[in-house]
């Protein structure tokens, strides 16, 4: 849909032949089959499951196909705090990731242009965390930030933390984990747009007596908008559905569970498949709505 607007800025749509060729359709077939089998079918199945009703005299985990739309009302009343919390956490993590990533990407993509070797090296450093499973990295943070760790005891020693306070298992730890894990997804798209930033525009702006802050606000940011949009989407969407950071086995606690954890508990422990499916559909729809509003506002119009 609207994504195409910034995904293929350089393609020459006008030159695409208009006639439908059978070869093109044939080439598309594997892709279409793939989508039908592995996206559309599970999606329809999920939708039907979300309307299932418990079987009569059924035991745990036994449901029959029905049109029980009350499932949706039920999960929203039961889990509204988790839904709001998920999007709140994702939003905070996205903003934090943007704040950390923008200067970093600017430095790598603009300031370091003079030293190509250093530039590549820094890019490798940004990607380097991917060499290790993110589960392991998250677990490592859990150890680093544990109560008796150097960091936490030091913070307590200088009275930046209350003596009986702790970090792991709190909402702050979950937001920290989300921000940390998604920073590369923010940095890389920002880097690709900033790397192509034409510095002559900035010079022209200062020649016209624009204050550096004005130059940044009115020239640099608008020019790097595609990177910001792509980066925030790549961070916000997976962060809202993430269930690893908030898992009680990782950085979360009972008061920081996100919607992904609720879905997991309903699916695996409670065998309440309709509730899990309804929550998944809600998560998907809300993300789709938020993202399309965002792309429409930031992506297609302000970009032009």
């Amino acid at each position, binding site marked *: *849909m*609207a994504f*195409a*607007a910034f995904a*293929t*800025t350089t*393609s*020459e*749509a*006008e030159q695409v032949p208009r006639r439908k060729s059978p070869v093109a359709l044939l080439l598309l077939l594997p892709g279409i089959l793939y989508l*039908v*089998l592995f996206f*559309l*079918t599970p*999606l*329809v*199945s999920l939708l*039907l499951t979300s309307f299932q009703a418990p*079987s009569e005299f*059924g*035991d*745990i*985990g*036994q449901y029959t196909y029905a049109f029980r739309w009350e499932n949706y009302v039920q999960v929203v009343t*039961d*889990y509204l*705090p*988790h839904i709001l919390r998920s999007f709140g956490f994702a939003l905070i993590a996205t903003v934090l990731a943007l704040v950390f990533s923008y200067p970093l990407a600017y430095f790598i993509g603009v300031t370091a242009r003079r030293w190509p070797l250093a530039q590549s090296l820094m890019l490798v450093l940004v990607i380097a965390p991917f060499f290790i499973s993110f589960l392991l990295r998250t*677990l490592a943070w*859990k*150890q680093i930030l*544990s*109560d*008796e*760790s150097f960091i936490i005891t030091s913070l307590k020693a200088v009275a930046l933390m209350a003596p*009986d306070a*702790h970090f*792991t*298992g709190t909402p702050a730890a979950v937001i920290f984990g989300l921000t940390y894990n998604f920073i590369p997804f923010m940095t890389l798209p920002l880097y690709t747009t900033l790397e192509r930033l034409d510095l002559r525009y900035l010079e022209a702006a200062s020649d016209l007596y624009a204050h550096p802050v004005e130059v940044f606000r009115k020239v640099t940011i608008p020019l790097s908008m595609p990177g910001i949009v792509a980066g925030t989407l790549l961070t916000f969407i997976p962060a809202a559905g993430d269930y690893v950071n908030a898992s*009680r*086995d990782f950085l979360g*606690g*009972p*008061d*920081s*569970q996100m919607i992904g*954890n*609720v879905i997991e*508990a*309903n*699916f*695996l*422990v*409670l065998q*309440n498949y309709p509730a899990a499916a309804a929550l998944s559909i809600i998560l998907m729809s809300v993300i789709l709505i938020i993202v399309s509003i965002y792309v429409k506002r930031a992506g*297609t119009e302000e970009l*032009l």
Partner: protein
Amino acid sequence: MKPRPLPADPMIQQLIRQAQRAQLGRRTLLTGAGAGAAALALAACSTGGAAKPKAAADKSAAEKSIRWDNWALYIDVDDAGNYPTLDAFTKKTGIKVKYTEAVDDNNTYYGKVKDQLALGRDIGADTVCLTDWMVGRLIRFGYTQELDHANIPNLANLQPSLKDVGFDKGRKMSVPWQGGFAGICWNKEKLPNGIASVEELWDPKLKGRIGVLSEMRDTMGLIMLDAGVDISGDWGDDEFNAAIDVLKKQVSDGQVRNIKGNSYKEDLINEDTLAAIVWSGDIVQLNAENGDKWDFVVPEKGGTLWNDNFVVPIGSTHKKNVEELINYYYDPAVAAEVAAYVNYITPVVGAKEAAMAIDPELANNQLIFPDDATLAKAHVFRTLTGAEEQKYDAAFQSILLGS
């Protein structure tokens, strides 16, 4: 609707047209939905009704093999990664065993195999060891095969207290593999005075440093026992809800730091938690690997006792081989050999005497070979009906999810 005029820049015009063309038309959407529904109709054919599946025909005589799914670190292993007792079994009977550490959680394992079980198909294992309540569910649903006790003469060595359990009268469908206690453990260095009861876990001085298990029957069992409820006996919603209120308060007050499954050990090691409700066998192992730092006790008011049990899934074609395997592990000498490695409680009578010969210190470990006084303090959580299980699980999960 009047379209807005396009900007003058040709490149941008092109972009906008491209974006407009890409918009999803109503017809495309309907076509897509139709294709999806058709594909689903195919998928739906495979889900059977609620009828109980039939046991598969036994091919044990022709195929001398067993596939056994079990939990991690739950059998003797030598340095080369072989399983000495299993190798001896193969030598003795000619039955080859493919042993897989495929179970790391009752619920996730069940999630993986439940659809095949419902259809009576093979789940890729001829036997699997699961915890009492999950075995109870499998039996209730008719997902297990009845064992022929004539093929398991050594079953006479089964602990008398485990012979008749609520979920499997007469042990027709299941046989215990290993068991353990849930009790209280504390960090000896930080809490030299120790912890004797669940009540002491709620001491304000330990705020935020307490852990409890995400296994509903163990955590709730200990809290109910602390309130004086006989968890094996006849209790109902009132007793359960009173315990739920206790846990809810401790969690929302921040007294309980976290509610975890197997990973609670990390919290004990990094001292996020100083005392916790835990499983006995883990503490033996934890002390062996991380310095002798923790103590474990079954509280005076009672701890829970659970077992993991062999079952033969409905689709298995090697039931008789499995019966032979069970018979082999109910030989006290073999049971002692396993117990020496896994640190859990063996259900085999006579294993303690056999262990005495291997290692007297081991035989006197209360957590591996408990005496009658310890066993008297351990209680089995009563079997729940399907409806109770759903209700109580939901109440417990809502605390885990903080709602």
